[in-house]
């Protein structure tokens, strides 16, 4: 018997350049695990399904693959996540939405099946503000500053707005919002507005072609790249690759490192790519989104491993059991080191209440040819995030008439 992981991916369409390395990372990690004996002997089987980043195709993929015994899904898109959030509890399939999805779904007591591991758009926005404050020399220095959010006009792009508004109130900066229609190939007016407002900082909440276009428009309107800060989905190679040196100085959040030093990357190169079984091109291994794909898959695998510890080693876990595993992840530094992920990400541990597990992230900078210059780790401010998560979770539960999970449910 094998543990089945459906892989919802997009290798075509407007978001393909970003979706592809991510999808490759996910697959390569499975290949690595299978080549090194599986999860306590349980091999992983998988099947890719192309969503093209479109919600309805995503739903079709989900329905198709769930019948084949899906036990864990990473939808790779916030839109698809929204659509699956209602279906997952019925079908008992947990969703990993690492660094994306509904920010409120951190609240495990309402969103039993969602796992926005390692960060949500609220933590992301919070950390960016913290980083800017630090640059300026303290939160009090933010007073009177102008910060502009240039965002993908979709639920994904709108997620950080409530947090930023909260922060603007708290820290006294002036927030302005500039939407960019998807997919974001025409941004002249957005950047003319930036030029008019002359903000002190621009936050970039984009995905796919929107990011590189934004950088090019910034070049064309002379907005300094050093003052631009992207979310972690706007901080990978495809976003800056063809802007090249012009994008030098641009910053973005980093959930993970990139590069080929980590042991797990080396393992993959050896065990998978050298055998000619690599999913994508070898040069791509270790890139930002590829590595993120690895992490997502690793967390899934570790959730199964954790579940096996409780429900029986060497057995195939059900969706429900995997869910339990995800809810009880405890990856400390030692474990991460053992898995070959030292330095790639911070330790993470989840609980019934907290489905995120870690609210830490760093900021990295494009030096014209590669991502580097990692900042220190920041942790999102609990004081702000917690009440927002709770309020949003409660509202959701009320709307959906969902009962809150019992404490006993958590223990189970």
């Amino acid at each position, binding site marked *: 018997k094998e543990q089945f992981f459906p892989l919802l991916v997009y290798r075509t369409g407007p978001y393909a350049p970003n979706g592809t390395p991510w999808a490759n990372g996910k697959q390569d990690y499975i290949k690595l695990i299978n080549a090194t004996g599986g999860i306590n002997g349980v091999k992983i089987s998988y099947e890719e*399904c192309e969503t093209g980043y479109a919600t309805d195709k995503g*739903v079709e993929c989900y329905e198709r693959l769930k019948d084949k015994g899906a036990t864990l899904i990473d939808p790779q898109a916030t839109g698809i996540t929204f659509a699956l959030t*209602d279906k997952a509890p019925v079908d008992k399939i947990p969703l990993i939405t690492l660094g994306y999805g509904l920010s409120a779904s951190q609240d495990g007591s309402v969103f039993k099946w969602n796992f926005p591991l390692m960060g949500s758009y609220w933590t992301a926005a919070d950390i960016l503000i913290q980083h800017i404050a630090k640059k300026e020399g303290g939160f009090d220095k933010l007073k009177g500053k102008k910060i502009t959010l240039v965002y993908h006009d979709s639920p994904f792009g709108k997620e950080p707005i409530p947090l930023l508004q909260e922060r603007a109130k708290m820290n006294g900066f002036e927030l302005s919002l500039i939407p960019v229609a998807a997919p974001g190939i025409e941004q002249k007016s957005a950047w003319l507005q930036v030029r008019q407002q002359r903000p002190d900082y621009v936050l970039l909440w984009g995905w796919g072609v929107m990011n590189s276009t934004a950088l090019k428009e910034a070049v064309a309107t002379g907005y300094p790249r050093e003052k631009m800060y992207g979310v972690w989905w706007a901080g990978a190679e495809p976003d800056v690759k063809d802007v090249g040196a012009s994008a030098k100085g641009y910053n973005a959040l980093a959930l993970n490192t990139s590069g080929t030093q980590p042991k797990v990357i080396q393992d993959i190169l050896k065990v998978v790519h050298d055998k000619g079984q690599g999913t994508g091109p070898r040069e791509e291994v270790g890139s930002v989104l590829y590595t993120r794909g690895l992490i997502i898959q690793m967390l899934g695998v570790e959730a199964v491993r954790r579940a096996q510890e409780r429900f029986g080693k060497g057995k195939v876990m059900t969706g429900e059991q995997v869910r339990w595993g995800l809810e009880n992840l405890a990856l400390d530094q030692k474990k991460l080191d053992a898995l070959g992920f030292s330095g790639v990400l911070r330790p993470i541990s989840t609980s019934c209440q907290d489905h995120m597990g870690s609210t830490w992230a760093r900021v990295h900078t494009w030096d014209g040819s590669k991502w580097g210059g990692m900042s220190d780790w920041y942790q999102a401010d609990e004081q702000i995030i917690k009440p927002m998560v709770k309020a949003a979770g409660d509202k959701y539960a009320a709307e*959906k008439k969902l009962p809150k999970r019992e404490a006993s449910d958590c223990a189970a």
Partner: protein
Amino acid sequence: MLYRENGQFKSSYRADQQIFPILQDRVLMLLLLAFAFAVVPFIASEYFLRAILIPFLILSLAALGLNILVGYCGQISLGTGAFMAVGAYAAYNFHVRIEGMPLLFSLLLGGLCATVVGVLFGVPSLRIKGLYLAVATLAAQFFVDWAFLRINWLTNNSASGSVSVAGLNLFGLPVETAVQKYLLCLALMVLFAMLAKNLVRSAIGREWMAMRDMDVAAAVIGIRPVYAKLTAFAVSSFIVGVAGALWGFVHLSTWEPAAFNIDRSFQLLFMVIIGGLGSIMGSFFGAAFIVLLPLVLNQMPGWFGLSISTALASHLEFMIFGALIVFFLIVEPHGLARLWSTAKEKLRLWPFPH
């Protein structure tokens, strides 16, 4: 059984005006309906229902609505997505804002709101024709996309613009499982198909077609362009709106404006063209072609045990899909419905070739 109409004499105009004047067709249709209502729910898998049949039914309903406008009245619309969105979000608002609003009423009220918006954007059709009219409907498309993203009130203040419904029930009967949802969609689809068929074979349908074929002559025989065009917009958007509401409520249950974006509008237009403009049946053929074919193509490599990369498979799927569209148009430029009726005509002559 041979497919013949010999011996079937129509002794009254009523008999001649039946939807399916040929007995064999009538029987076939009844069997098909019986199968759809009574057999499918038992044999279809959950996947088949949820991922194929329900979207197929809803989109054919939308295509049916669009066909009234484009196929029967000759007004090209690229704003179908918008009218679906209006249907969906309006139904949503009735659903969440009015306690105890029955599902069916929400859906119909959604359709009604879509009617209002449809008629509004249909007004330019009195002056603008052909492809130029596409601008008016595209304006609707983009405006509506924008409105649901930007105007919070319309989405019940959901920060992201995405809304969701749960716990549907139809006069007390739950609409939760795939089968229940399927039956709801099927019933509505059959109902609207009947109503639409009745309309297009009545005076109003003839007015629409007259407008489409030769508007000056239509005016000369006393058809009012305003009335003909705006009723077409109204009826079409109503059906499209209901389909939109179903798409949101029944198929997706959580949706964002992107679910009804311009791609949807194009997709529906393609359905009616490939299915057959001005044919109720064509709407179903078109929906089947556009919804099902990609799925079939997508799964084809699997059936043959080929393992090709996802990207390549998907590119091949595009290519084959594109090539098939061209192929069918060459075989029958008037769409699949016409192909079907030509085939029947041949069958009727069979075994004598002409």
